[in-house]
């Protein structure tokens, strides 16, 4: 009897001690540690750290914005071009040549895989662009020549040569003048890589993909470690040329599930998240521990019709399907206060290029049914592809898809919803496997031409950003004229006309423009919302918790 009691008591004491032990564990991090580091809840995993081959913000946020710089940058508030790695520049009188004077005090990052022996110079600029231009370049072949933006922005056709005139002067020679050339050079794909590093990789016969897997740049943070699909760890670049980096550590916690991102933010495991869905947004606006930063975005959420596949090659079918969709309900349900309607592919915030006079065909299910049967389709069965990530242009793709599915059911169309992991989704859409797909696009510059060209231009089909595979020569001609235009009024008129064409043929159904929203806990300071989308933590710092 006694023994039995003794055993039971000691077991109970053991359990009690265990509980005390666990309860006594401090839940909060030490202030010092959390102050020196920022954790960003990102929604996707990059496939590598090369911004030249990337097309999505999942890639750019992890590479271009953190590890690299470009020759020039766009001011976040005014949109004006500012010096970055280039201190000043001159354009030739015929507009076909640009000479950039480079800074002489820029350091590349010191990492476990590379220690630079020299400062940044013209060689690096030449290498970075030649990799994309020269088909004989080994690194070009290694990337299978898939430089989407380089091709899409017209550089493939238009960049005749790039030469290092001196150690700190680089000349770009163009075939035709391009009024948005400087804006193009401020884009993520134009990031500057280290030629010295590339040479070392080749000399030591390392696998060439190391250039993209273990990146070296001049940017504010250097890559420390990447756990696939889980965590990206960056450290401050001690010799960053532009400013002193406040955060010692920057961590991207890859969290595809939006409810988990929200939970991590409010429990303090993450400091920042972007583009929360409507339900979370409403809760967060009432939360006293976080700050909300928002701006109307230069973006568009749309539904693409793959015009290579039947019945989407028929413009009447596209029109009919568009008329079946109740956009007002979608915008209210999915976006709420976070989005505004747009009837054209150019976002309303991109004034003056946005054409406010265009209206999409009105929501009319009866008319839609009529049109469909006239076109010979009475019992259509279609696939609607949905993106799995949150974006400013689409805070809840699945919800939108279900609403569309229901709308289409009312006109006799059966819709199957299909989705994949984000990178897989993009790959398959780029390969043209989709029928209808929910997608979006964020402007890379303030130039509507780039926007329209990427979405609907003929060259963009090969570059795989034109996801409707629509090619209209008249449309392309209008865009080309506009890029050559001398004055702004001409440009505006031409872009307006192009939008009319796009809405007439409806290769894509423009849905809405989303607000860019960033939510951060109150310890985070100097967080700037990027007008052109994506994140940037260059000047961010954290203060101690005040309680």
């Amino acid at each position: 009897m006694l023994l039995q009691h003794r055993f039971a008591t000691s077991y109970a004491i053991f359990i009690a001690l265990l509980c005390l032990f666990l309860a006594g564990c401090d839940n909060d991090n030490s202030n010092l540690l959390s102050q020196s580091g920022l954790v960003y809840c990102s929604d996707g995993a990059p496939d590598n750290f090369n911004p030249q081959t990337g097309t999505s913000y999942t890639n750019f946020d992890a590479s271009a914005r953190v590890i690299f710089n470009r020759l020039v940058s766009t001011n976040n508030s005014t949109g004006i071009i500012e010096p970055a790695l280039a201190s000043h520049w001159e354009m030739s009188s015929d507009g076909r040549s640009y000479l950039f004077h480079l800074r002489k005090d820029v350091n590349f990052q010191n990492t476990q895989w590379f220690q630079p022996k020299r400062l940044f110079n013209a060689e690096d600029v030449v290498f970075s662009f030649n990799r994309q231009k020269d088909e004989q370049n080994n690194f070009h072949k290694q990337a299978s020549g898939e430089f989407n933006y380089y091709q899409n922005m017209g550089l493939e056709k238009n960049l005749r040569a790039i030469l290092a005139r001196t150690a700190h002067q680089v000349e770009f020679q163009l075939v035709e003048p391009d009024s948005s050339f400087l804006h193009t050079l401020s884009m993520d794909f134009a990031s500057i890589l280290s030629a010295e590093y590339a040479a070392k990789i080749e000399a030591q016969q390392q696998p060439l993909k190391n250039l993209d897997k273990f990146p070296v740049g001049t940017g504010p943070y250097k890559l420390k470690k990447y756990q696939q699909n889980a965590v990206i760890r960056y450290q401050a670049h001690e010799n960053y040329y532009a400013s002193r980096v406040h955060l010692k550590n920057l961590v991207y916690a890859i969290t595809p599930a939006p409810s988990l991102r929200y939970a991590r933010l409010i429990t303090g495991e993450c400091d920042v998240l972007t583009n929360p869905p409507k339900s979370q947004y409403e809760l967060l606006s009432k939360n006293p521990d976080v700050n909300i930063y928002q701006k109307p975005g230069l973006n568009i959420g749309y539904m693409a019709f793959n015009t290579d596949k039947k019945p989407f090659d028929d413009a009447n079918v596209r029109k009919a399907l568009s008329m079946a969709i109740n956009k007002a309900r979608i915008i209210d349900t999915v976006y709420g206060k976070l989005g505004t309607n747009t009837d054209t592919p150019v976002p309303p915030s991109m004034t003056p290029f946005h054409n406010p006079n265009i209206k999409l065909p009105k929501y009319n299910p009866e008319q839609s049914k009529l049109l469909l049967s006239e076109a010979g389709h009475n019992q259509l069965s279609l696939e609607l592809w949905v993106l799995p990530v949150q974006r400013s242009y689409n805070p809840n793709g699945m919800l939108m898809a279900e609403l569309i599915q229901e709308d289409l059911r009312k006109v006799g169309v059966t819709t199957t919803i299909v989705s994949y992991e984000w990178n897989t989704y993009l790959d398959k859409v780029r390969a043209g496997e989709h029928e209808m797909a929910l997608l979006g696009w964020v402007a890379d510059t303030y130039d509507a031409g780039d926007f329209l060209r990427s979405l609907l231009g003929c060259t963009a089909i090969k570059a795989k950003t034109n996801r409707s595979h629509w090619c209209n020569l008249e449309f392309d001609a209008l865009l080309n004229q506009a890029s050559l235009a001398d004055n702004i009024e001409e440009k505006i008129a031409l872009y307006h006309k192009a939008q009319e064409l796009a809405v007439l043929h409806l290769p894509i159904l423009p849905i809405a423009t989303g607000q860019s929203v960033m939510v951060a806990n109150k310890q985070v300071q100097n967080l700037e919302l990027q007008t052109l989308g994506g994140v940037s933590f260059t000047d961010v710092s954290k203060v101690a918790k005040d309680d």
Partner: protein
Amino acid sequence: MIKLIFRQIFFVLVSFTGVTLISYMVLNSADHGANTSLSYWQYISNIFKGDFGTSLVTAEPTINSFLLHLPASLELVLLSSILALLVGLPLGVIAAKYHRTPIDTIINNISITAYSMPIFWWAILLIVYIAIEFQLTPVAGRLNFIYDIEPVTGFMLIDTFISDQSYRMEAFFDAINHLILPVITLATLPAAIICRMTRQTMLTTLNADYIKTAQAKGLNGFGIYWIHGLRNALIPLTNMLGLQVSTLMTGAILTEYIFSWPGIGKWLLDALSQTDYQALSTGILITTSMVILINAVIELLGFWLNPQTKSSKRIYHG
């Protein structure tokens, strides 16, 4: 006994062959058949050389990714098994001892509810109420992201402890914090089963003749319950452990999915959503082979401990 071992080995090999056939089928089910030009024979010989194929998604050998994710699952499963034993055994014994009293009924009802609980729902409930509502534990993951711990063994408790960072003890306790909900989630079902099994077998053994003999011999209550009763209850329990491996693995996959726990369960599901057939086939091959091996070993152990056990006893909850 030797004959039994040989028979067991033979059966294990046959099972392995069956599993390789299945994983080969999975590998070839990719709809863009451009990647797999391997014949079945090549596939097998590659495996013997240690080459399990390279993922088309990550461009890494699949076996490397698998081994990278394994320790996280092992840590979770081990700790859950321990918790299940620590909770299930005593509760089962108590229920048996207080048979036909309210205590027995309560414990019985709790255990039935516990094993009727869909594990994924239980996990969500725990997260919503304990982590989000009362903020007592973190929501998901293994460790707060701010800690950069070198993955030496892959076991977070060990790695934080032996780390040379200044915040290692803090990280250690943080790791424990992150383990609480997933371990409770995964341990619930096995604990319920162990509790019921223990109760059942203790009730039957307590009625057995030799116990009555022991009582007649004058042994006190402690001796009866703990030494004789429990020891004999452990025999069918070890039989049960075998099929618990399968259940644990299923539970682990779901738990890892919900808690974003970077183990092989989540890895398998990620591979499926990325249509990474190389990784899928490797994962299926290895996890199933592991279960087969463990089951065979446990069965042999069972034979050794109690030669009377029939192998056809494995008819319980799967």
